């Protein structure tokens, strides 16, 4: 019986079908098709933003076995830097011209990513490199760095939550019949899809990607084949930090109001995504992020009292079923 269920599951797409299965199960529980569409698009958009933040952490974790709790600092700084740039470009942000809106958004996200690149490089060199292969020290020093970064956010932007201006072209919703689809979340879904496609192509169609995938499985063997894994790791760490900052910038726009705790709050979701997706796997991170995003939105609507626990329950169920996550990079 179990084998039959397993074969059927594989025939319909295996773990890749899970988000769709979740959507189908949610439809009768939500009860209204327009509401279901709204919740589904919201969940996919939220999932893609979490994916942006989780993908780099997953690769760093998988490639160098580094537990970087400081990852959320890049999320926080990304959000605050983007908010600052958007506030400075308030005229473009509020203009009735989508080109100016898009320019303002590009400048904000670009500034956040640039910070992620530079700070990620410094963070790796100063904080992470001295504690390779020592998990306890990694946890202690990256949490320490996170505390310092959170305090820096307070020093620079103060303790009062600040609002994030949303570019005019991303405000409001598409109305199609009875269905209302939030423009910002649709945009987040589009951006996440583009980033995932680019990452997927780099990882699966280039020699650099081949080296990263091999390094996630067996660092030592990659070096024995003649490649410096350390240089590869710096690159992955820096790109992961920039993506975290980009995710933070997008998340800030979605929240509308951000405070210094933003990074730490989102980091719980990011860790859940990395764990249920499987370490070192971009596809796993995407699956995990979509499930977290969708489930969070459905549960908040159907069983509001369960919404806080829903993602923890999801993680428990998936780890009981697949202890190494949905799509681990390492085949055992």
């Amino acid at each position, binding site marked *: 019986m179990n084998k039959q269920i397993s074969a059927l599951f594989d025939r319909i797409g295996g773990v890749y079908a899970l988000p769709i299965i979740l959507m189908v199960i949610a439809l009768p529980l939500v009860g209204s098709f327009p509401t279901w569409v709204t919740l589904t698009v919201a969940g996919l958009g939220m999932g893609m933003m979490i994916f942006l933040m989780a993908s780099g952490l997953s690769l760093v974790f998988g490639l160098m076995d580094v537990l970087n709790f400081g990852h959320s600092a890049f999320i926080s700084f990304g959000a605050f830097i983007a908010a600052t740039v958007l506030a400075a470009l308030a005229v473009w942000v509020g203009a009735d011209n989508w080109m100016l809106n898009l320019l303002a958004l590009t400048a904000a996200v670009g500034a956040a990513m640039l910070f992620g690149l530079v700070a990620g490089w410094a963070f790796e060199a100063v904080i992470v490199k001295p504690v390779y292969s020592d998990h306890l020290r990694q946890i202690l020093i990256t949490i320490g760095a996170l505390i310092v970064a959170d305090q820096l956010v307070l020093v620079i932007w103060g303790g009062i939550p600040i609002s994030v201006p949303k570019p005019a072209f991303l405000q409001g919703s598409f109305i199609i019949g009875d269905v209302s689809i939030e423009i910002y979340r649709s945009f987040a879904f589009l951006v996440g899809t583009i980033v995932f496609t680019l990452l997927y192509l780099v990882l699966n169609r280039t*020699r650099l990607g081949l080296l990263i*995938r*091999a390094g996630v*499985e067996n660092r030592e063997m990659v070096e024995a084949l003649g490649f410096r*894994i350390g240089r590869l790791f710096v690159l992955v760490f820096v790109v992961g930090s920039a993506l975290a900052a980009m995710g933070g910038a997008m998340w800030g726009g979605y929240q509308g109001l951000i405070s210094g705790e933003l990074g730490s709050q989102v980091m719980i979701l990011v860790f859940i995504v990395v764990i249920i997706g499987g370490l070192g796997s971009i596809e796993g991170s995407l699956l995990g992020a979509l499930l977290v995003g969708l489930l969070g939105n459905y549960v908040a609507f159907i069983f509001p009292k369960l919404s806080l626990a829903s993602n923890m329950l999801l993680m428990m169920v998936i780890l009981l079923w697949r202890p190494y996550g949905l799509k681990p990079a*390492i085949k055992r």
Partner: protein
Amino acid sequence: MSDHILRLDDVHTDIGQYQILHGISLNVPQGGVHVLLGRNGAGKTTTLRTIMGLWRARTGAITFNHHDITNLHTSDIARLGIAYVPENMGIFGGLTVAENMRLATHSDRFDADRLDRIHDLFPAMKKFWDRPAWALSGGQKQMLAISRAIIEKRDLILIDEPTKGLAPAIIEAMIAAFREIAQDTTILLVEQNFHFASSLGDSVAVIDDGRISHHGEMADLVADADLQNRLLSLSMSA
């Protein structure tokens, strides 16, 4: 001296607080198959890993093709022309056979003649070219590990217990393949299977407790049952 491709001079290696190699000195001649024999824990794998720079020699010197490689990074040692096939084969299970092979090329391109030679030696590699490596059998994974080591010209191949866990029929196929490979490459082979080792080896060194306890021609060891008993009785299987 000049006909030695690899020299180890009084190499001491520690792993954590334990000293594993207690002054290994070994000369590996150019060409042929040279075997390192010894019981479990004698230091055979540590010797290969120390040569590759995966574990650092505390003292002593390692010279490859007149380059001092004692303190070089593993990747630089590999690029000098040493291939390494570890005991666990080091296969990337999530990659296809083709991708595993591509990684071992420094130019990212296959030499058609070498690829044909590999397909002749191990037809399974051609058959399963686009399959993920985790789906291969143990013997096929070993074939992939060895194919990866010879996909480009290497001067020296270090191979750690290639017959471990393999069926006798596959071991016979491996003997034929290794004879072919050794025609243009030097092989330093760590092995516990004396039948396999004696079928291939030109010279032999026996390690005991982190030191070389015997060094000579394989033919002499094969012909001298007393010497075999004295050196190998603790660990070898025929």
